[in-house]
């Protein structure tokens, strides 16, 4: 009886679904690529690229790269000299500039905003304002004129960059440029941790990584930073294990255990992240570290 009732229910729902489908299907009309592309860009512009990875698709595609590609194809299709640009071309160029801005290609964004501003008509004021901000971003993001001669100089340059980006965060933090400035400052802080890892003591590197984490707690890269912190602790443990192997001094078992424990704790925290890739990274590192540790234990005498 229950089975019959279930069958009837399924049949009825399929029938109703079919009816509903046939009633609401609207006739197709011509889609407007420019308007739709702008509406789509507008949807993605709401994403905070510092805090989330919503602008990155499941296969790693960046929606701003795609938007830029679409607007550049529109420009190719229109194939007009700058002098002959109409309002449509200005809109396309402005939208292109916004995509370039989100992709952190600041010099190109400056040029695109400048072209819109120079026309002096549609979107000119907005473009002028954005151009000035982008100019500052481009200036701070410009590559160094000459390579640094020592790690100390490298570190000094990094510190200067971080300070400059911090200032921009202070100025534009609440605007749409805020997440960009935060991403830039974060990138230089990551580099600082790398340099500390290479040229400073293990404890200093860990402290630098802690500072990176504390300053970027709401970043999308928070779990990655935790993994880096775990790596630094694991590296500390590895250095201590080399002491054991070479017997150059007394092995500090407590220090070694502390480092292993801290590395595992950092990886465990990162393994709770929602993104699958980073979670797998953390889990793999836990397994690797445990295997390494077993190897080291086997050498304890």
């Amino acid at each position, binding site marked *: 009886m229950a089975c019959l009732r279930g069958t009837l229910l399924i049949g009825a729902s399929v029938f109703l679904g079919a009816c509903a489908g046939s009633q609401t*299907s609207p006739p197709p009309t011509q889609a*407007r690529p*420019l308007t739709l592309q702008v509406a*789509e860009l507008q949807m993605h512009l709401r994403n905070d690229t510092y805090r989330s990875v919503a602008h990155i698709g499941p296969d790693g595609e960046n929606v701003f790269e795609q938007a830029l590609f679409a607007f550049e194809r529109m420009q190719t299709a229109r194939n007009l000299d700058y002098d002959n640009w109409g309002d449509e071309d200005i*809109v396309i160029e402005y939208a292109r500039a916004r995509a370039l801005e989100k992709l952190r290609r600041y010099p190109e964004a400056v040029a695109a905003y400048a072209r819109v501003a120079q026309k002096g008509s549609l*979107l000119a004021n907005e473009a002028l304002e954005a151009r000035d901000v982008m100019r500052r971003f481009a200036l701070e993001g410009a590559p160094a004129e000459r390579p640094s001669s020592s790690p100390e100089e490298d570190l000094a340059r990094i510190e200067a960059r971080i300070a400059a980006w911090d200032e921009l965060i202070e100025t534009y933090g609440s605007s749409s440029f805020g997440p960009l400035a935060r991403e830039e400052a974060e990138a230089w802080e990551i580099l600082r941790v790398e340099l500390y890892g290479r040229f400073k003591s293990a404890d200093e590197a860990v402290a630098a990584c802690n500072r990176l984490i504390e300053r970027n707690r709401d970043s999308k890269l928070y779990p990655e930073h935790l993994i880096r912190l775990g790596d630094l602790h694991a590296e500390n443990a590895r250095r201590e294990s080399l002491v054991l192997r070479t017997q150059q001094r007394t092995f500090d078992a407590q220090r070694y255990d502390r480092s292993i424990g801290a590395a595992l704790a950092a990886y465990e925290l990162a393994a709770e992240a929602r993104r699958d890739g980073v979670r797998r990274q953390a889990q793999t590192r836990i397994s690797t570290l445990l295997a390494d540790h*077993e190897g080291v234990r086997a050498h304890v005498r």
Partner: protein
Amino acid sequence: MFADRDKPTRVGIRALVVAALVGLIVLIFNGSAAAEEREQIEAAARTLSEREPMTPAERVEVAESKIGAERKERILRAHSRLLEIGWQVLTQASPRRVLSESRDLVKELWSWRKPYKVEGEALEWLEPAVAVSSADPELIRLYTKMHAREVKETSHAALDQAEAAASRGHFEHADARLRRVFELNSDADTERAQEVATRLSELRNSVPAISAVAEAPLELAVADWEAPLSAALLAGQYDRALELGTDEPSAVLAREAARYLLGDLEPAVRSFEELGEREDRVGELARGWSRRPDVNAQRQFELESRGYQFTRMLGWIGGTQLANNGRALSSRGYRAWRDSLTPFNVALSMPTRIYKDVYRDWRPENEDLYDAAFEYVAQFPDASDSDDTRAWLAESVRTRTDWRSRGWSDGHLTLDSPSTRFQPMTPEPVLLSRELIESERVSDVAELQSALAGAGAVQIELETNQSEGEPLPWRSSLTLLAELASVLEDRQLRVIGVDNARAIDHLRRLESHVRSGRRLMVESVPVEAPSLVSRLAGTVFEGTSERAGALRFSRGEEEFYALREFGGSHLHCPDNTVCLDENPALSGTFYGKVDLEDLDVGVQTSFHRAYFSLGVNNGLPNASLVLPIAYWMGLADWVPLEAQVAIGVDAISFGPRLNPQH
């Protein structure tokens, strides 16, 4: 003889007689396996006096001995299966069982085709010598033989991978695997490798070549209203955008986006949903808008809530396991349901979980739900159902531990202790029972005695910053560790937490730290005052295994156990601790088992690998005795037979049986 006595007495007397016989047999056979002590000492002396590293011949010997050990193990396995079949035939067991045993024997013999499991290990012994061009012919022969087998396996696996990759169209990967096969140059796979190469080439040719796509001229039709509407959107002039455009779906979509960005959410969301039913680019984009959690908060929240309610229901029924796996159409899901639908779970655990959930103690973790609920409450503060939502959300948010906030205090991250267990390099604490300290096995040390006052046990550990207790004098520390190690070497202590060898290694590590200047600290471990009722309730309702002093409670799928060990000091050994206790002359367990139909009680004990149990099962007394005759005679490897005596109310049965652990 026993006609006038009641049944339990009969069983008891029979058991006593048999136990006495067992004691006699133990005493006769126990000393029979005389150790070849003298030969061992001579061999050790020879090894100690040699200073040269291992020769290639010795390496071959080690490798061969490893393989020989596994070969022996295989033969033993086959032999015991053969014995089992013989036994089944002898006792006229059912043909089905005989057939099943025969099938197992055939499977065992068939598995002999595979390389030995220790071959990799044996190769490791030979490879260093081969790498430095050893000329030892025996070593080369053995190495070549095993290496050829290894190459064959690797080549076979690479060919399988090449075929799989080719069938999926991953030609480059298939090429790489094939190249590996040809590099390995395994004779056995040459023909098959050629076939795969031919097939790969055919498959590659069957894929149409990518011809240059003729570039179609790009066209872009732009209506007059598009530039102003798009400019207004891009400039954030949403009010203006609402007044622009036509009735074309593209314009409607752009205006709805402006409406949404103005904060007029509900009508915008409705329009997105309507437009989303279209099959064109407009519909696709509208669906994109409406799928965003921040845009269609209501729908997202409803969706997540529904999923949450279902998960919670699964959690009520079967706990976390069913909540996590109950929806899976796989063996994992099946197992989750099977484990949940046991009488005990349905009768005890399920009501407990429902009761607890009413008071919000148990909830599945669901980040997406929290996010959706927050967005929903923020966007629809006046919605009729949002008050309840906000109430439980506020409470949940307070109580839940978000992974991003874990470890943070005052803006600083402090890493907690990891939950992943690892064996630390620093020796873990050692717990010594009162019985052991009071015995003559360890010297009388004042610090140990004073720590023992009023305590159940004493813990010794290396001094750290957090150490409590009294330091043990250096000389006493070394003496204590040496004494404990000696007793352990003679296997005269009960070790809990690790095995005997690990415990000795542990003491050695402690000793090396003490010698290098670290101090041992002695700390009292108070006698545990267990809450019997709460532990029992934990086992009955939650299904957890609990311990209260000498008592242990656990729950099976349909039964409940209470165990009480006797002999030994009922030492509760915490995690990451090595616990040492006096080895009781006789130890065993009193047990009680309750299921839905019956109550069984009894006692089990063992003595020199002989097992004795006495109990009341299904209302009738019975006893059982297992005598490892073959082990006592030194034949356990070849004839793993045991004698089993079952003593019932009406009769005594005696018969051999195969050791199930063999």
